[in-house]
């Protein structure tokens, strides 16, 4: 018998909803079977905590006296440039931005100690941030220069708005070249010296709802320690990616654009991070509840690490230089990755994760508590995300030389 989200919400309000994490549902389905699990469980919570470079915040700083129009000018937060090509006092700060005098990779490998992600973490933590701006001045906005401290509690709006988060599966990075390389997947030692992966596997939101049956536009989520929403499919959303029989993609596939009020978020779930030789970013915590509407959905949510496969990709040559894999390196399950080693080309290679599994558990548990205590109700998606049937795919840039 199928349930509706309205019925589940009624149970949540009465404190009677049965809520379990995406880890716990694995055993429940194994013990009780799909049918009973679908009847007994109302919500499965997921979580992920990893570096997500397409993240940023927008702020309305409030009007100065005399007024200044930042649009068309330049502005900086703690020396890191922010985008101000909007109205007078709206600015957007992306997490990978760096101050103009950051040495970047001039001294290789660069350290990238402080970028947009670090500013975001400090801003969320309630620290004062130095705003400096120059503008061209108009009759209605005469001021040309602004230097001031700003604080999250004083600005009008502060919103986290990430164009691409929560990748549905990701590559396992190796290096077939004979040089040590520094990548967004960490340090990769030459000649298959190590293999790094990034994903929460069986706890990862989109791997528990692989065909986007419940997660859609408008879905209410745990975002950065506060409440957020799915705003749209994320950039590079690729629902037609290769999938296994269980519907789970075995390559990077779907993504989400997410949004939420930064003022109620917490710095421990929005952490400024630095990738040696690569850049600065923001490590974001996201958790998504999956309403168990029927047997099909509970079966998807009970996916386990043994059943989720990720492709092995060479970041020495293949990833930077070619569209299609030149060498098929195969795929490996998250269960195998978590043992700490994989076998490739007859060699045993140590593995390491980039996304924190303990934090993913903490997120799924927190969301579970919120729902159980009645403070977090589920939402009906207002529109679906494009699924495999949409034919939507991920394109490379078609370069056309400019004569």
């Amino acid at each position, binding site marked *: 018998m199928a349930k509706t989200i309205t019925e589940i919400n009624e149970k949540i309000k009465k404190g009677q909803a049965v809520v379990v994490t995406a880890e716990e549902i694995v055993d429940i389905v194994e013990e009780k079977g799909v049918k009973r699990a679908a009847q007994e469980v109302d919500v499965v919570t997921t979580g992920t*905590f*990893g*570096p997500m470079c397409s993240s940023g915040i927008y702020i309305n700083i409030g009007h100065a006296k005399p007024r200044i129009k930042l649009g068309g000018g330049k502005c900086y937060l703690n020396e890191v440039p922010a985008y101000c090509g909007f109205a007078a006092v709206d600015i957007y700060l992306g997490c990978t931005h760096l101050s103009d005098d950051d040495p970047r990779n001039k001294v290789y*490998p660069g*350290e990238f*100690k402080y970028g947009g992600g670090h500013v975001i973490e400090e801003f969320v933590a309630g620290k004062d941030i130095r705003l400096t701006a120059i503008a061209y001045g108009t009759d209605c906005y005469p001021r040309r220069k602004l230097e001031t401290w700003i604080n999250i509690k004083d600005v009008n709006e502060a919103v986290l708005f990430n164009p691409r988060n929560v990748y549905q599966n990701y590559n396992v990075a190796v290096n077939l070249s004979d040089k040590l390389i520094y990548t967004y997947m*960490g*340090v990769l*030692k030459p000649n298959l010296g*190590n293999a*790094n992966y990034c994903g929460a596997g069986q706890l990862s939101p989109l791997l528990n709802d692989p065909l986007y049956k419940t997660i859609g536009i408008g879905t209410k989520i745990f975002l950065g320690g506060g409440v957020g929403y799915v705003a749209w499919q994320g950039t590079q959303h690729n629902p037609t990616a290769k999938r296994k029989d269980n519907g789970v993609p075995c390559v990077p596939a779907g993504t989400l654009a997410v949004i939420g009020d930064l003022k109620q978020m917490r710095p421990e779930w929005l*952490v*400024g*991070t*630095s*990738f*040696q030789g690569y850049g600065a*970013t923001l*490590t974001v915590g996201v958790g998504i509840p999956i309403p168990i509407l029927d047997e099909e959905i509970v079966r998807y949510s009970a996916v386990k690490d043994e059943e989720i496969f990720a492709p092995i990709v060479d970041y020495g040559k293949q990833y930077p230089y070619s569209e299609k894999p030149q060498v098929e390196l195969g795929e490996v399950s998250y269960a195998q990755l*978590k043992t*700490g080693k994989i076998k490739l080309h007859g060699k045993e290679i*140590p*593995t*390491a*994760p*980039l*996304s*924190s*599994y*303990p*934090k993913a*558990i903490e997120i799924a548990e927190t969301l579970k508590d919120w729902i159980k205590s009645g403070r977090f109700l589920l939402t009906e998606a207002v529109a679906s995300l494009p699924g495999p049937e949409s034919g939507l795919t991920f394109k490379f840039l078609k370069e056309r030389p400019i004569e």
Partner: protein
Amino acid sequence: MISKRIVLRFPNRLIDQPIVCKLVKDYDLEFNILKAYIAQREEGLLVLELKGQDEEYNKGIDYLTRIGVRIQLLSQDIVRNNAKCTHCGICISVCPTGALVIDSITRKVHFYDNKCIACELCIPACPPRAMEVHF
């Protein structure tokens, strides 16, 4: 038998003296140099793994102290800032001695400072910069 990882700080008057060779000749100690440099203001720093019979080891340490070398256990110098560590686990890929390992049950990262040789590879490899060096 004692085997310890220690940090030795030499005042500048000692930096041109052959001190470690005395530990070998007079006290029959084995050593493995993990790090050595001369810092600003000409203070020398040497990180050693030192091994030998208990009595000889202590005599060797006495000798170093007597001539003015300051001694500290290595584990006090590389520390993890637990408030910053997110337990992602990427550090285990660069740690050459297995001082940083992932617990197979909890998936949390353990830092065994007795295994750390202060190579400092984890310092820039840690995304939230939770590993700190305090030489």
